[in-house]
C-alpha cells in the first residue's frame, strides 16, 4: 500500500542570555559541574524566581519571527514530574497562555516554498544534566545542575511535513532564523538546539491521521532524518501486515541506528499543570511589540530571494551568502562601497569562505574588512594587479589584516604596464627560445602561449597580460 508520511517537530533552543531564566547564575557551557548553581535554580524552599527580561524578549522576538499571534496576557505554569535532573520536581513552563500561537515558517524544498504552521512558541527552564557512568554494574547516575534554569525556547510545529526533505529544510531554516536573530547559538553538539519528531502514516488520499509515534534522543540533524526514515519503514511494515501502530515514545540509538520503545513507566505523562504562583503574569502591549519587531533582522530566506532579485546573483550563490548572517552582511557592506555584486560574491564564496575554513577563522572577528575587499576588487579592475596576483594579495590580507595597497607596494606586486619594459623582456625571451619561434612558424599555435608563459615567469606574473599578448603577437608577426 502507498502511505503518506505525516511529521511534526518539537524544537528546543537554549537562549543565549548571559544568565539563567530566574536567577543570576551564568549559562556558560562546559564548566566544572555544579559551580553555576544557587538556591533559586536548585529550588531551595523559600526562594523566589524573577524573570530574565532578555530571555523573555528573545522569546517574543522568535515568536514574532515565526509569525505567531502574541498572547497579550501570558503567564507561567508548573509542569510537575519527578526526575533527578529536575531539582524542584516541577519545571516552570507555559501551558495555558503560551507566548505565541498559530504561526508559520516558510521553508524551501527543491526550489519551491511551503508554509509549515507553528502550533505554539513558549518559554521554559532547562533541566540539569544527567550522566550515566558506562562501567557495567554501576547502580548510580550523576547530576550536574549547571544547566538547570537556563532559558529554553520550545517551538512546536503542526504535523505539516510530508517527508525528510521538508524536515531537513525546516530544521535548517529554523536554525538559521534563530542564528540570524542572535537568540541562540544553536550548537547541537552542546545540546543548545534539539529536535523531537512525531511521525504517523496514513493511506494516501486519506485525511484521517494514523497513530503518532514520538522519537526522542535525536542528537543531530542527521539523526533526525535517519530516525524518521527508520520509523517510516517500521510503521509501513506493520501496516502492510495489517497490524496497528502503537501510540508510543521511542528512543533513537545513533550507534545501532534503531529506535526502541521507551518503558511505559517513563512514558506516563500526567503533568498536572497549574499556574506558577511565584511568578507574575506578563502583559504585552503594542508599544513593546513594536519595539521588539524593530529588532528582528531580515530573515534568511527573504534575504536570499532579495539577493537574487536585486543583485542578480544565482539562487545557489545567494543561498551560500545568506547561510550565515555575517557573510550576508559582509557582502552588502562591500556592495555599498563598490557596486560590483557578482565580483564581490565570487570573492566571498571562493576565497573568503575557503580561507575561513582552512584557517578556522572566527567569523565574528574576520581579519578582513568589507572596505578592504572592495578596494582589492577596485585595484584589479584598474589593472594594477592581475587576478592571479590578487589571490596572493588576498591571502596576505587575511594573514596580516593589511590593506591591499600596502601589500602591493611592500611586495612590489603592481602589474608592469610599461610597454618598453615588457618589450625588452619579450625580446630576451625570444632570444633564449628560438625553437619556439620556429615551432610557431611551422603552425604550432600553442608556442605563443608558451612564450607568454615565459614572459610572465620572467616578471613573476606581474606583466599586464593584455599588453604582453599584443606585443608578442606583433613580434612574431601575427
Amino acid at each position: 500500500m502507498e502511505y503518506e508520511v505525516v511529521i511534526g517537530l518539537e524544537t528546543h533552543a537554549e537562549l543565549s542570555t548571559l544568565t539563567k531564566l530566574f536567577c543570576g547564575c551564568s549559562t556558560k557551557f562546559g564548566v566544572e559541574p555544579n559551580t553555576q548553581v544557587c538556591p533559586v535554580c536548585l529550588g531551595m524552599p523559600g526562594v523566589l524566581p524573577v524573570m530574565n527580561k532578555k530571555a523573555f524578549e528573545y522569546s517574543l522576538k522568535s515568536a514574532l519571527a515565526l509569525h505567531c499571534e502574541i498572547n497579550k496576557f501570558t503567564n507561567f505554569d508548573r509542569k510537575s514530574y519527578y526526575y533527578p535532573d529536575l531539582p524542584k520536581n516541577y519545571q516552570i513552563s507555559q501551558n495555558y497562555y503560551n507566548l505565541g500561537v498559530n504561526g508559520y515558517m516558510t521553508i524551501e524544498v527543491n526550489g519551491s516554498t511551503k508554509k509549515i504552521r507553528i502550533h505554539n512558541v513558549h518559554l521554559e527552564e532547562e533541566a540539569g544534566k544527567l550522566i550515566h557512568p558506562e562501567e557495567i554494574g554501576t547502580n548510580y547516575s550523576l547530576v550536574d545542575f549547571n544547566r538547570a534554569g537556563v532559558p529554553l525556547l520550545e517551538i512546536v510545529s503542526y504535523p505539516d511535513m510530508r517527508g525528510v526533505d521538508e524536515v531537513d529544510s525546516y530544521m535548517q531554516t529554523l536554525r538559521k532564523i534563530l542564528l540570524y536573530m542572535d537568540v541562540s547559538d544553536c550548537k547541537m553538539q552542546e545540546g543548545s538546539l534539539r529536535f523531537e519528531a512525531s511521525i504517523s502514516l496514513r493511506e494516501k488520499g486519506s485525511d484521517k491521521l494514523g497513530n503518532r509515534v514520538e522519537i526522542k534522543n535525536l542528537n543531530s540533524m542527521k539523526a533526525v532524518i535517519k530516525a524518521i526514515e527508520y520509523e517510516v519503514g517500521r510503521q509501513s511494515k506493520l501496516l502492510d501486515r495489517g497490524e496497528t501502530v502503537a501510540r508510543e515514545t521511542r528512543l533513537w540509538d545513533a550507534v545501532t541506528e534503531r529506535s526502541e520503545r521507551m518503558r511505559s513507566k517513563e512514558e506516563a505523562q500526567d503533568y498536572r499543570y497549574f499556574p506558577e504562583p511565584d511568578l507574575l503574569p506578563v502583559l504585552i502591549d503594542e508599544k513593546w511589540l513594536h519595539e521588539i519587531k524593530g529588532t528582528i533582522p531580515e530573515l534568511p530566506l527573504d534575504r536570499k530571494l532579495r539577493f537574487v532579485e536585486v543583485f542578480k546573483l544565482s539562487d545557489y550563490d545567494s543561498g551560500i551568502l545568506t547561510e550565515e548572517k555575517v557573510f550576508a552582511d559582509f557582502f552588502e557592506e562591500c556592495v555599498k562601497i563598490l557596486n560590483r555584486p557578482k565580483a564581490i560574491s565570487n570573492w566571498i564564496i571562493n576565497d573568503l569562505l575557503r580561507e575561513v575554513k582552512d584557517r578556522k577563522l572566527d567569523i565574528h572577528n574576520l581579519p578582513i574588512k568589507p572596505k578592504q575587499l572592495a578596494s582589492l576588487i577596485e585595484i584589479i579592475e584598474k589593472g594594477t594587479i592581475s587576478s592571479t596576483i590578487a589571490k596572493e594579495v588576498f591571502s596576505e590580507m587575511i594573514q596580516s589584516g593589511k590593506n591591499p595597497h600596502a601589500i602591493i607596494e611592500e611586495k612590489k606586486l603592481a602589474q608592469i604596464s610599461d610597454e618598453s619594459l615588457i618589450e625588452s623582456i619579450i625580446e630576451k625571451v625570444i632570444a633564449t627560445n628560438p625553437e619556439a619561434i620556429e615551432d610557431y612558424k611551422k603552425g604550432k599555435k600553442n608556442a605563443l602561449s608558451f612564450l607568454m608563459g615565459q614572459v610572465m615567469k620572467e616578471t613573476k606574473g606581474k606583466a599586464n597580460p593584455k599588453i604582453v599578448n599584443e606585443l608578442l603577437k606583433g613580434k612574431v608577426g601575427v
Partner: protein
Amino acid sequence: MIDKKLIEYVASLSRLELTRDEEEMFMNQLTDILSYIEKLRKLNTEDVKPMAYPLNKSNVFREDKLCPSTSKEEILANAPAKIDAFFKVPKVIE
C-alpha cells in the same frame, strides 16, 4: 471521589511510598478538602474573573546581569550522596 486507587496513583506520581495508615489518612484529608471545594462551587461566581495571582501586579523582570553563584561546597553540602562535584542519585536508565 477520592478512593484508594487515586491515592496510590498520586503517590506514585510523586514517588512517595505510603503506609496503609497514611493512605487512609490522606484519603480522608483529601476528601474533606474536595468536599469543601464542592461547597465553594455552589457560589454564584458568574461575574468574577478567575484569579491565579493574589497580587494585582504584572511584568516584574530582572536584567540579564551575572550574580555570584553559590560555592560548590555549599551546594553539595545538603546532598545525601555525591561523587566529586556531582550529585549522586540512584540509576535512572537501564
